[in-house]
């Protein structure tokens, strides 16, 4: 087989997808960058203003607070998802019927849309008609219904609870796969070596799941950094602008204030942050030739 010819055939197969990405990812990315240098408005018009939008972002306290809030959300929810997902995986990795079913149910909300699940939880948490307050009051855990979304902290936790419900099964399933792929004899060997359950978890299962953990963390962190639906629907950015995320603020500027240029600058900044984060983690995830 002549490598040149075969390579060309392969390239031909990949061409449609490459063109698609070029047209709908790379070109728009360039366009985004160009727009970020203009004062383009959704109402039309706009001119080249150089780095004005970036300067504006630098001085925009809501931009900073939204970025800070996004990081805070990411920082809070990632350990919850990773730790919780891992514990659930430890609990359910074996293929007994009950555990398989439990796993299946834990994963189920993942197939529900984030928007839909957010609406569902918006109702569950509602101050007046929500069942969660009703249960908490009936169990005498709280005296009066909590208005979850009046408080940035409570609202954040309400969102974290709802998102955890929705996506924790994702990590769980990946971790289950990682644990199951550990040779059963290795676990047994460690058992005979006298390692207790938690010693096994810490010294055998955890280190052998590192790749999965890093991969899942990456997915989760990127997902959290671009959070929008859950806040748009549940807290609606409030109280005040306390629960605005970066993407929400970008959307707000581009499509509510019609400032597409400024929104584009925010998008570029967010993209750079996420790209750096993702690249760092991909680099960390690289196998170091140890296995």
């Amino acid at each position, binding site marked *: 087989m002549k490598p040149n010819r075969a390579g060309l055939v392969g390239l031909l197969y990949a061409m449609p997808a490459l063109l698609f990405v070029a047209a709908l990812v790379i070109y728009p990315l360039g366009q985004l960058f160009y727009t970020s240098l203009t004062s383009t408005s*959704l*109402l039309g018009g706009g001119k080249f203003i150089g780095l004005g939008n970036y300067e504006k972002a630098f001085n925009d306290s809501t931009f900073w607070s939204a970025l800070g809030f996004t990081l805070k959300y990411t920082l809070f929810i990632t350990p919850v998802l990773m730790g919780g997902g891992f514990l659930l995986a430890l609990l359910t990795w074996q293929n007994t019927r009950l555990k398989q079913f439990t796993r299946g149910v834990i994963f189920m909300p993942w197939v529900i849309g984030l928007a839909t699940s957010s609406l569902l939880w918006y109702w569950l948490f509602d*101050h*007046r008609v929500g069942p969660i307050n009703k249960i908490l009051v009936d169990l005498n855990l709280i005296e009066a219904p909590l208005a979850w979304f009046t408080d940035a902290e409570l*609202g954040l936790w309400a969102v974290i609870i709802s998102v955890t419900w929705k996506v924790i099964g994702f990590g769980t399933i990946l971790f289950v796969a990682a644990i199951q792929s550990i040779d059963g004899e290795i676990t047994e060997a460690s058992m005979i070596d006298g390692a207790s359950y938690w010693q096994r978890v810490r010294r055998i299962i955890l280190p052998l799941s590192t790749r999965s953990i890093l991969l899942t963390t990456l997915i989760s962190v990127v997902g959290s950094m671009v959070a929008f639906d859950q806040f748009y629907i549940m807290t*609606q950015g*409030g*109280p005040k602008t306390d629960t605005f995320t970066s993407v929400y603020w970008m959307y707000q500027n581009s499509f*509510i204030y019609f400032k597409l240029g400024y929104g584009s600058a925010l998008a570029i900044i967010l993209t750079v942050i996420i790209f750096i984060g993702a690249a760092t983690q991909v680099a960390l995830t690289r196998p170091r030739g140890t296995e």
Partner: protein
Amino acid sequence: MRFLSKRAVARVVLGTTVAALMSSSAMAAEQLNLLVRSSAANGATFMTDLWNSTHEDQISVTVIPDNQMVTKLATGVQSGDVPDLVAFDLIFMPDFMRAGFLEDLTNLLENDPNQAKVAQAFKDLASYEGKLYGTGFTPDVSVLIYNKELFRQAGLDPETPPKTLAEIEDYAAKIAALGDDTYGYYFSGSCGGCNIFTVAPMMWGSGAKLLPKGPDDPILEGTGVKEVLTTFRNMWTAGSIPPDAQSDPGNNFIAVFLGGKLGMQGAGGLVINSIKQDHPELDFGIAPLPGVKDGDQSSFVGGDVIAIPTGSKHADIAKDFITWQLTDDAQLNGLAKNFILPSRSDLADNEYFQAEPRYITTAKAVGIGQVPWVFHFNDMVNSDASPWITMLQTAIFDGDIDGAIETARQKMKEIASE
């Protein structure tokens, strides 16, 4: 796979059948589409029903949630996919007129004798650089609504609603004291638009100047601003306001009042109708929104303007509809008969309203009301992050009134200079 495609096929069949049924009703004549925000959907429906029953060309109404309305209109215009007619919050007229999104209706309206009788607020907001781009459609004015039953229980006279801020605060405390989840006053604490409608007039009453048209205009000037914020702050700390008011982005604007456990709140005149319909058991009164002193009453003349987006495919019929809806017949039989304020001031006092004195109060409010003419209204007031709503929240829920006003002033100045 097979499962999926079967479903898909079934839905396609179902979907197209329904679509076919829906469109078959108006085969011969033209079919027009009127885009309207949800809070004006009622009036728009009455109007188009009346039109449809008397005209061959049919107009259907598409309802968009309030907070997506202008975005949808803007993105629609951008993508060249516009409705034939659009009715939206008159406050956005400046932005859209400046952007050239609307058809010039100067000739049409200046030759229409009815246009002269349209409430002044509409005429102001619909003109830009000497041209007219729209006219009144379904006005709404802000008023105070109060629960007479709770007034009685709290030992207040149900026929003397509060006339000053101090009285509001006092009455609210008395009603909240009834206990059992009863509260004195409500406002949607996370809704900028709601509060420019119901809170700003309390400030205007004492002559305050709130929103700037340009960067050099006065911003949040006047004692009324601080007085009103202080009153609300006091009511909040006193527990006269339900705690979930803080996070309400307007979704529960009057839900609490409808529950019968709320004493007073600012609201639009339009609610009279829906309360009467859906909650006949509620005994409620209507009063002008009070200000700092007795007599400082004011109102926000809001509601929806009607206009034709650039690129409308049925501009001629749309123009017919616009002039038609200003006629006595449409104003009276489309709106007033259904207890919706007519946009023509001369018809405010009509036979239908005679039977319901509460409408007279709202009709009178139109005369004392204002409406701000500003660009970037979303940015400044309406959005979830606007300086206006941020000021209210910081002042009322956090208590930093002076700081809140100062921050808002700076932000508004920035926005106005764009």
